[in-house]
């Protein structure tokens, strides 16, 4: 295969219709960027699940005026539930411990910490269930406002809502990515048809002198693949910028507090080859199919 010939054909092809090429690259980049974002959100969701679901599933907040006996009775009931196999583990958190954890979590927001008196946070039992779905059992055992219990809260329920929100965000991102990908594929197909039309004299002669089909098609396929690669590089660049300028800056607080997991370079490094392969693969396939369907070579 004559590399020089093929490459110069590719370069000429890309230069000859700059507008189409730019449009093709940009749509590809947007589509791939959104796809990458979707993958990052998916990764984030599974990280967060690990962070949260591992921890407490039910919190039993005690009332302000709780007595020593009431506290001991709650603990006794929990021990019994543990024996019955409902509760896996539980721990007690005093007002002071709650405040310390609060200070740590919101160390990025000193104002908030300063304006919260140390005794504002309630003491609580944090309970891990054997089966997180069995929240109702606990809630029935400790009615709100009775015997020193202020409120029983299912943290899992909150998490479920949070995750369904995040899953929705991921799905929406991927849906837009798919629509964009469709637009990108149509543009690629169009560009290749135009390129084939521009080069019809060359390809007609190639056909008549017996150039192989592969040799005739390769410049077009490479042209599309190159555009796909450039689009993928732009998309990866976009993800890097999003991390540096948005995630690392605007979300620095919650990340430090452990509320949102950080986006690691390792994750971007992991999805970059996927994006590049998707860009090159889809563009080359679209070009090949276009040539088969619409262009006589």
């Amino acid at each position, binding site marked *: 295969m004559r590399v020089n*010939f093929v490459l110069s054909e590719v370069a000429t092809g890309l230069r000859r219709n700059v507008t189409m090429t730019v449009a093709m690259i940009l749509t590809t980049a947007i589509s791939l960027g959104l796809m990458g974002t979707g993958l990052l959100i998916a990764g984030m969701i599974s990280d967060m699940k690990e962070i949260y679901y591992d921890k407490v599933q039910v919190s039993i907040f005690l009332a302000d005026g709780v007595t020593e006996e009431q506290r001991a009775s709650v603990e006794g009931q929990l021990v019994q539930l543990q024996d019955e196999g409902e509760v896996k583990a539980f721990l007690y958190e005093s007002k002071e411990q709650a405040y310390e954890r609060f200070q740590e979590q919101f160390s990025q927001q000193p104002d908030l910490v300063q304006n919260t008196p140390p005794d504002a946070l309630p003491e609580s039992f944090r309970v891990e269930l054997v089966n997180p779905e069995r929240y109702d059992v606990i809630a029935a055992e400790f009615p709100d406002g009775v015997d020193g219990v202020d409120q029983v809260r299912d943290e899992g329920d909150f998490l479920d809502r949070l995750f369904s929100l995040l899953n929705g965000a991921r799905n929406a991102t991927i849906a837009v990515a798919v629509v964009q990908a469709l637009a990108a594929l149509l543009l690629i197909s169009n560009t290749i048809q135009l390129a084939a039309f521009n080069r019809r*004299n060359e390809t007609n002669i190639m056909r008549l*002198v*017996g*150039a192989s089909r592969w*040799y005739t098609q390769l410049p077009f396929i490479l042209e599309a693949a190159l555009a796909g690669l450039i689009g993928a590089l732009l998309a990866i660049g976009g993800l890097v910028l999003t991390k540096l300028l948005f995630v690392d800056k605007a979300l620095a607080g919650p990340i430090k507090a452990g509320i949102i997991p950080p986006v690691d370079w390792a994750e971007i490094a992991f999805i970059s080859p996927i994006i590049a392969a998707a860009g090159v693969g889809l563009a080359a396939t679209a070009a090949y199919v276009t040539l088969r369907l619409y262009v006589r070579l």
Partner: protein
Amino acid sequence: MIELQHVTKLYPASARPALDDVSTEIDKGEFVFLIGSSGSGKSTFLRLLLKEDDPTTGTVVVNGKTLHTMSKWAVPKLRRTMGCVFQDFRLLRNRTVEQNVAFALEVINKPQRTIKRVVPEVLEMVGLEGKAGRLPGELSGGEQQRVAIARAFVNRPLVLLADEPTGNLDPETSEGIMLLLERINRTGTTVIMATHDYHIVDSMRRRVIELNGGVITRDQSRGVYGVGR
């Protein structure tokens, strides 16, 4: 070497076949004129030999190979044994004479060494050795057709197909082109030339196959264009 058996070609859009039950044989090394008025099926005849199109019914055999049973991957190999020349030259405007001829070899992966050797040889043969660096736009019509012939012949094909190669040229220039085609024929290459230029046909006295509405109405060795003309 070339054989058509009961070949009929019916284009989808037309009611009348472009070729109608055509059978003939052409031997290796022959020089054949394919004559007939416009629309009589000459170009269709040549296209079928190149497998640019398949006959509706009938069999075309080239170099011992039956074309309609040939896989499409084998078609490029078939075409490497055939050269084609057209009325409109079909040169690449942005490449020089030399590059136009080299193009035909480059795209079938001939080594650069071979290309460097054979391109000047063939340009000398067609009488363009001094104009290798010119663009097609800087040549006369006759010279452009010589470039096209050089390109068709540079890979030493077994068959040269020429579809009205003198259609755009004046009689004197045409004569030069005919001398060149004769010379190529003398190297053993079969030449099949479609034309309706009766001066040329009459002066050459070669085999003539006449088509009329897609039917062979005459096949005569050492023929002339029109009987009683």
